[in-house]
């Protein structure tokens, strides 16, 4: 009970601050938190990255295994994205089967990777109709301080960009080779707080949010995926201006995904 009262007071405070153009952590409406990416964090994965987005921490690991292509796409590899919002990462997560929030994160990330054609699935195929690489992107949230979608996307795409296809280990080639990543999609998430729309929301801002919009862009300046979430609404003009803001943040986030700070 007291937790809920505190949350309501915090929500009111976040909205009050937003009305005067301020944020709890002192950022401006269009300031993204500091991003750092540590590729190769997990030695047991074929590709991995640890992403810190402010206080939010997310690890992603890529695993490649040989499997069968789907009957309707005999020439294409298989890509599976999964996000685990484990109870270690937030007092609001409980043990049990995947919650809608976790499923949304993995589906939004998966959609951007697919739509941007980050990896050419046909190149994952070994023998059409019989044998192909199955590429798993597993995202493990460790510290939930808001904006999990952007953090999960950065971790996933960075893990892919640093992945090695274990072809020698699986006996299908003489040597392992780098996974070919042809496009680098990144997500940029905004939430509405009253009349202002802020980028990269913290956990408290997400609780107070009156609508959330995530926009995925690639390095060619294309919009490759979007997701509106939470209760709230955006006008077409809002969306147009947020696309411009997402594109402006994209290059810096992509530089981070390649490895390094932003």
């Amino acid at each position: 009970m007291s937790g809920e009262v505190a949350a309501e007071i915090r929500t009111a405070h976040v909205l009050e601050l937003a009305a005067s153009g301020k944020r709890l952590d002192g950022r401006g409406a269009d300031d993204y938190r500091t991003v750092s990416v540590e590729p190769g964090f997990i030695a047991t994965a074929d590709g991995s990255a640890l992403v810190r987005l402010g206080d939010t921490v997310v690890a992603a690991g890529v695993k490649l295994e040989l499997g069968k292509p789907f009957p309707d796409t005999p020439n294409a590899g298989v890509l599976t994205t999964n996000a685990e919002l484990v109870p270690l990462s937030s007092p609001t997560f409980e043990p049990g089967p995947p919650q809608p929030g976790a499923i949304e994160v993995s589906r939004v990330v998966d959609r951007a990777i697919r739509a941007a054609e980050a990896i050419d699935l046909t190149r994952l195929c070994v023998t059409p109709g019989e044998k192909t690489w199955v590429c798993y992107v597993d995202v493990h949230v460790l510290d939930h301080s808001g904006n999990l979608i952007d953090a999960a996307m950065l971790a996933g795409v960075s893990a892919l960009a640093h992945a090695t296809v274990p072809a020698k280990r699986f006996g299908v080639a003489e040597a392992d080779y780098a996974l070919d990543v042809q496009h680098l999609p990144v997500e940029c998430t905004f939430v509405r707080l009253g009349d202002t729309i802020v980028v990269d929301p913290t956990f408290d801002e997400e609780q107070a949010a009156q609508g959330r919009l995530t926009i995925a862009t690639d390095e060619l300046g294309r919009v490759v995926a979007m997701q509106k979430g939470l209760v709230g609404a955006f006008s077409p003009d809002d969306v147009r201006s947020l696309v411009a803001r997402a594109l402006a943040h994209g290059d810096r986030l992509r530089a981070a995904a390649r490895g390094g700070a932003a």
Partner: protein
Amino acid sequence: MGSVGAKDVPVLLTPEGRRIDGRKLDELRPIRIQAGPLHQADGSAFVEWGANKVMAAVYGPREVHPRHLQQNNKAVIQCRYNMAAFSVDERKRPGLDRRSQEISKVIAEAFESVVFAEEYPRTSIDVYIEVLQANAGTRCAGLVAASVALADAGIPMVDLLPAVAVGKVAGQIALDLKKEEDNFGEADLPMALVPQSGRLVLLQMEGHMTPEELSRALDLGVAGCTVIYGKMKQALRDRYATTELAGGAA
């Protein structure tokens, strides 16, 4: 070298008594413990132990979920040991398998033996362990991480719980097995020690040991736990090394 899946046993012990990574029989792998790396949890710790990477977080004392587990005279300690899909060579299906559930249970019971649970009736102390990278000995690394996380959360306890596994490689009792030694070794004996009383609150064993070997393994494990105990205390001291309370300001 051999092809994939070759069953060739590697040389686990040289004639000079050196192990596969150059360690002596009574030597631990390098251990690094960081207290309090997470922001959302009430207490947390990150442990890198050889090629293991384990994060632990503690929430509570807080309301019990599910409610029917609530105890009127003490806190319940709930533990969840989980392995990330990418933590092992062959991708693990996400979620708790039977092994993880058993490990969660014995770790929870180990902590129940040292936490002053009766101080917090009708609450839950939730201990979460996430194995991010596994290389044998993850239950001990997880237990060490969770113990530091409990202390970081300010949960009153009799003592910290250092833990280590002792095994048998090439016929010799050896401390803290790494993966190759575990796979091809002849025995594995994980344990957790209450340093203050000298008693064990987690003890499992699998393999073959004579009573004499088991006796030596216990001594070796206790000695290893003592070293780890020092590192755990140091991690907690380091956490607050630069913290100064503003006296009277509150």
